[in-house]
């Protein structure tokens, strides 16, 4: 806030994404006048086949890590009609998505910096594909969502579709959402050729942010202590950087290779409540570093601040962390989160691509863990590695949650699985397209 107690423009803009709707958007635009963005693409055929091909449009930091777009909306949609979708609905909805692409560039150059205009994916749930008589082909691994640990009890998402909208500009994700839902007919000077109203109904919206400074600005929520412990350089609530280049799967690794949905991917979205009073008030810095990364990171003081000094790697293999997980569980009674997760790698490379972001939804600190992977089973394997139940069984000292990475600070409230088809099948796909 400024010294008169009013929200600053920047604070207002990011709060607006969480609030949502036409009034939040108009208030946001009144204040900021809207970002000065060029329009999007005239040549839609030149856009990548993969909906999830975002990386080429993202800025990279000094170490070559991709920098995630700062503002996000997950728009969960239900198909408004009974049964399987009609061709008319398919054409109309596709036209709406194309209008978004004409309105905003994926990225643009702003004073020499790459900034994301609008990137989005559209995905469909197992519940959606139940609308058809035919089954998905064997080349797609899309089971119903389920609880992935003995200590979690999430509600399972059964909405038909999810649209993940992301931008470096809060106004853009808000306006794109409004326009898709038919509440705004023009977007960045481009007339919406169609919208989703009448075809889809909004079931739920989840919002958030990721990037340096944003968690610090948004720390006045339940789950974060009043002492405002989150530093300005932290891109996420827990205070550490993630998304190191070497901790992320490549887009190629998460892309479905064969069958009608080749070029697509799967998306897992979980909604996680963060409980950070203990993290910040009761754990020391060295305990936090050990629990987030690996005990050796705490012992050797490897992490400065949010971890920017680590460059493009969390130093997992370099420090032998995954290989030592069992030993650490026995001799120290603790294991690190990254240390456990790194056990799920394939030939040394991760198999999921994180596109997660923090949230203030429902007034509490949260994490929307969006992950892309070729098969949902890749996510399940990574999560099982992160659960460390095998380590807790081997070692009497390691708790199922206690000192077992960061499990204690997270409560998984919802899980959902979605297929993100290639771009030419992104709109109301059939399970067995030609």
């Amino acid at each position, binding site marked *: 806030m400024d010294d008169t107690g009013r929200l600053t423009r920047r604070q207002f803009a990011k709060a607006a994404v969480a609030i949502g709707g036409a009034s939040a958007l108009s208030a946001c635009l009144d204040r900021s006048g809207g970002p000065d963005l060029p329009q999007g693409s005239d040549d839609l055929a030149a856009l990548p086949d993969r909906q999830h091909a975002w990386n080429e449009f993202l800025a990279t930091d000094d170490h070559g890590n991709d920098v995630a777009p700062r503002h996000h909306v997950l728009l969960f949609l239900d198909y408004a009609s009974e049964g399987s979708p009609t061709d008319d609905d398919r054409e109309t909805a596709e036209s709406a998505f194309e209008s978004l692409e004409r309105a905003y560039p994926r990225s643009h150059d702003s004073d020499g910096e790459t900034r994301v205009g609008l990137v989005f994916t559209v995905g469909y749930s197992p519940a959606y594909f139940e609308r058809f008589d035919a089954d998905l082909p064997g080349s797609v691994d899309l089971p119903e969502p389920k609880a992935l640990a003995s*200590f979690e009890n999430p509600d399972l998402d059964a909405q038909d579709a999810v649209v993940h909208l992301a931008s470096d500009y809060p106004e853009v994700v808000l306006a794109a959402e409004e326009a898709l839902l038919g509440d705004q007919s023009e977007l960045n000077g481009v007339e919406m050729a169609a919208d989703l109203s009448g075809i889809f109904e909004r079931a739920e919206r989840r919002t958030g942010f990721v990037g340096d400074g944003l968690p610090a600005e948004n720390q006045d929520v339940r789950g974060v202590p009043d002492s405002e412990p989150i530093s300005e350089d932290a891109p996420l609530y827990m205070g550490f950087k993630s998304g190191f280049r070497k901790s992320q799967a490549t887009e190629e690794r998460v892309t479905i290779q064969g069958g009608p949905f080749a070029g697509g991917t799967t998306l897992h979205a979980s909604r996680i409540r963060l409980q950070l009073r203990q993290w910040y008030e009761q754990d020391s810095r060295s*305990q936090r570093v050990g629990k987030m990364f690996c005990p050796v990171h705490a012992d050797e003081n490897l992490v400065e601040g949010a971890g920017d000094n680590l460059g493009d790697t969390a130093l997992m293999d370099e420090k032998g962390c995954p290989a030592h997980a069992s030993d650490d569980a026995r001799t*120290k009674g603790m294991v690190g989160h990254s240390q456990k997760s790194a056990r799920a790698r394939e030939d040394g490379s991760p198999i999921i691509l994180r596109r997660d972001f923090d949230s203030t939804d429902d007034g509490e600190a949260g994490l929307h863990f969006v992950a892309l992977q070729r098969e949902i089973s890749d996510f399940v394997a990574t999560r099982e590695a992160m659960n460390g139940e095998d380590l807790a069984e081997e070692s009497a000292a390691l708790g199922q949650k206690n000192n077992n990475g960061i499990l204690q600070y997270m409560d998984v409230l919802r899980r959902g699985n979605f297929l993100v088809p290639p771009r030419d099948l992104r709109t109301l796909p059939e399970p067995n397209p030609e």
Partner: protein
Amino acid sequence: MERRNFLRAGATLGVAGLAGCTGLFETTSANSPPPVVEDRPDAAYYPTHIEGHAKPSMAEDGRLRVALMYSYPHRFWTITGADTNKVSIQSEDDAHLMATIWDSETMTVLPTANVSAEISKDGETVDTRDFWPMLSQNMGYHFGDNVGLDGDGTYTASLDVGSMQARGLGDLAGAFEDGTTIEIEFEYSEADKNEIMYEELSDQQGQEGAVEPMEMEMMPVSSVPAASDLPGTVIGEGTSGDARFVVATANESPEFVGDDETYLVVSPRTPHNSYPLPFMSVSATLSRDGEAVFDDSLDAGISPEFGYHYGAAVDGVESGDELAITPGSPPQVSRHEGYETAFLSFEEMTLTA
């Protein structure tokens, strides 16, 4: 001025100066207890003060019993590996909430893996967190944390109680293998809280020892039997890190122990109060004529007769065998005051059968 500074200033004033200002010394209270003792032994020691707790609220699910009670916010120490961190009382903290979990059939306190709590009032969530596994001198093993509440009133704590993270033996075999969710209502009032017993131990604080376990109606304490009461043959006893390690073989072998094998039990416990030390790792090497016949880490186990212990099936223990007990990780339980300097580093102990 902090109390310590004032004491120093007072000393220069002499006795007459002190006599006139005793009222000023009464600045310590349950919410701002005296400073932690400066020269603490590396052992269990008397804390600066003791506190009682409000009447427990109880709930049950099958054989599982939960008692939830509150006291003044406490300072305590979290532990990760051997790295302890002092948790000070924060301005947001209203109470220390504690849960004890036990089996109604055998009255055994259970080494549940985790307890997470969602605390609400009038349907609004007030706090969510995972309680720490904790060890205190007057309560033994329990779960708890300091929490911020929303004034006087009726609260509901929804507790997710995890499965038991120790092998159940005897009447506990196969029990509590799944977690459950239990709701407990409790009344909180600041006035009631301020009636809870609070006593400073000015004479004893800092001395080796421990305050007595608190008498609790209707609920068991987590203490383990005296060596002489164990249903087995005691091989010996070692002391390390201020913990006592009682080593025995069971008279009656649990099911998973083969016919020609023996169940080896290592029971580390606190001095004075004989509380078990959960969430630690213990290895044993059994040597006969210079050859190791068993060399492995032990599994956590719980039985009504042995209490919480670490054990393994071994190929019998014969007279003259040498048994080396090697504690690995210290017990990964948060420590209430008086236990934070004990049970942190251990030496190997060797016994001869």
